[in-house]
């Protein structure tokens, strides 16, 4: 299926009449995606959750580890959502707790994305033996569930943030590489690549400025899906009580700390799972909107 993913140069056809068009093809599907409600809702949700994570620590009424009252109490004077199992302010911990998961997930996804794109482009452009070897290697990595990889690795390597980021990045690489390669295969056959080769452009230049822009659509969809998965993985570690274990607030870790008191004091669990759930759903909606826009452009060509 991946090989049939759309080739975005066709977006030119739609946008061509616009005067003073600076950026090439890419504009087309982003505009189409923004016209869809699901993309807009996704963007708003993501903006709200990211906003909470970024601004939260500055507006939190208390510090993340301040004790404000009796443990596990739902109603405490002057505290919005009560206290957690240690008597800390749930609302303040929630406001402080978004950064870790967000930063780790975004950094891991970016590292995986860049590496995956390079591997995919090289495989798709060169084909032949190298391509075969790379794709087989990817099949093998995919045979190992991401969460399992993380758990196996932190057993003796320890829960260091770099270990976690690099391993999550490793789970991002195979799918990104596959999607990039699939989309690139359709592009490298086209005349403008042949023209660039004939002009004697370097391979890096051809891959970077001729092939890459034309696989941007499927890639952007995949990047969003991978981000959802990275958030899931890092959240899952915290949920299992195997996160970084830093002495500070963290959404996923909050779930682990508070879920046993769910019936007495649900907020300590509910606030972070709402945030994590909304974040992944928001990113998922954006991915779906982009995916539809990219596929729509492709369909337009077939007609």
């Amino acid at each position, binding site marked *: 299926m991946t090989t049939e993913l759309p080739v975005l140069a066709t977006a030119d056809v739609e946008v061509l009449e616009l005067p003073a068009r600076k950026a090439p093809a890419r504009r087309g599907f982003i505009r189409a995606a923004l016209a869809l409600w699901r993309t807009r809702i996704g963007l708003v949700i993501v903006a709200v959750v990211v906003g909470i994570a970024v601004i939260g620590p500055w507006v939190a009424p208390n510090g993340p580890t301040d004790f404000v009252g009796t443990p596990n109490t739902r109603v405490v004077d002057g505290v919005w959502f009560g206290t957690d199992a240690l008597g800390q302010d749930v609302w303040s911990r929630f406001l402080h707790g978004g950064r870790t998961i967000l930063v780790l997930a975004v950094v891991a996804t970016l590292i995986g994305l860049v590496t995956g794109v390079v591997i995919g482009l090289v495989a798709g452009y060169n084909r032949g033996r190298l391509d075969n070897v790379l794709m087989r290697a990817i099949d093998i990595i995919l*045979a190992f*569930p991401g969460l399992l990889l993380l758990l196996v690795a932190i057993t003796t390597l320890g829960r260091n943030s770099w270990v976690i980021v690099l391993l999550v990045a490793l789970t991002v690489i195979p799918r990104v590489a596959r999607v990039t390669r699939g989309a690139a295969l359709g592009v490298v056959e086209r005349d403008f690549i042949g023209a660039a080769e004939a002009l004697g452009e370097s391979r890096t230049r051809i891959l970077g400025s001729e092939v890459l822009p034309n696989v941007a659509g499927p890639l952007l969809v995949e990047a969003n899906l991978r981000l959802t998965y990275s958030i*899931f993985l890092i959240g*899952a570690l915290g949920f299992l009580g195997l996160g970084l274990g830093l002495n500070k607030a963290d959404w996923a870790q909050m779930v682990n700390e508070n879920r046993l008191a769910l019936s007495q004091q649900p907020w300590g*669990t509910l606030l972070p799972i709402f945030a994590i759930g909304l974040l992944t759903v928001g990113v998922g909606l954006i991915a779906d909107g982009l995916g539809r826009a990219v596929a729509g452009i492709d369909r337009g060509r077939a007609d």
Partner: protein
Amino acid sequence: MGIVKFVVRRLLFGVLTLFVVSVAVFVLTQALSDPAQAILGREAQPASILAKQQELGLDRPLLTQYWEWISGLLTGDPGVSFTNGVPVMDVLGDRLWNSLFLMTVSAAISIPLSIAVGTYAAARRDHTFDSTTSGTSLVLASMPDFVLGLLLVVLLATNVWRVLPAVTRIRPGEPPWSDLDGLVLPVLTLTLVVVPYVSRVMRASMIEVLESDYVEMARLKGLPERAVLWRHALPNAIGPTLQVIAFNIAYLAGGVILIEYLFNYPGIGGALRDAVTDRNVPVVQFVAMFISGIWVVVNLLADVGTVLVTPRLRTQLT
């Protein structure tokens, strides 16, 4: 190339995959860092680390250690637990069956359900059922398993309605079906994780089949729509979906880790989580190989199955 040759090649690739996975698991747990150091902590004296290494057999060359581990694994003896010296098989014992039971029940419910939902949504394309399920599954599919499971706990077990137990209670030695009430939420969570994915692919595949010439032919010769859908279209639409079904069954093998921990279900997932905290390397290694084993076998079956149900692929095998 015949089907036999294809199966043999696919089998060899499965073996190669498991070999590479075993090397990766070994390197990550025993070669990149020292388990003895990890168990004793950073402040441990060199002498006690050395003693621990000798006790656990970690002072021998890495190749010897790998060989001992892998040959033990293949002969059904995956070593002894680091924490209490009990054989790994005894530590896990019933947990293996409990987990397999949870996976099987979830798959047995979610796979037929996804096929039915996908088929029905495709048949009523763009009508209420289709748009409702596609919206719901988009949201469900993007939500992490543990978030979904916790929301179900809040909804059905603790805060809103208290109709189901929030934990599974299976006593040691009892079969996994001894607590059916406690099984509902874990199975429901895993079902809600799997159905959105599989039904979406099923729907897409079905829509394509419904637009084909032979379906139109079946309709034109006057067959009732039900027969067209279930007898003529469905078998052809399942082929492309098999891979995704396999992927999701394999996903269940990994997904049980979180769900078992969440519902306190006595399976390998819970054991794995505890073994990671205790740095109990032999248990971690065994569970990892067990889960990837399931993963490889299920994918192999799906690849062969896809070829078997798609006649035109049989002639194209390369």
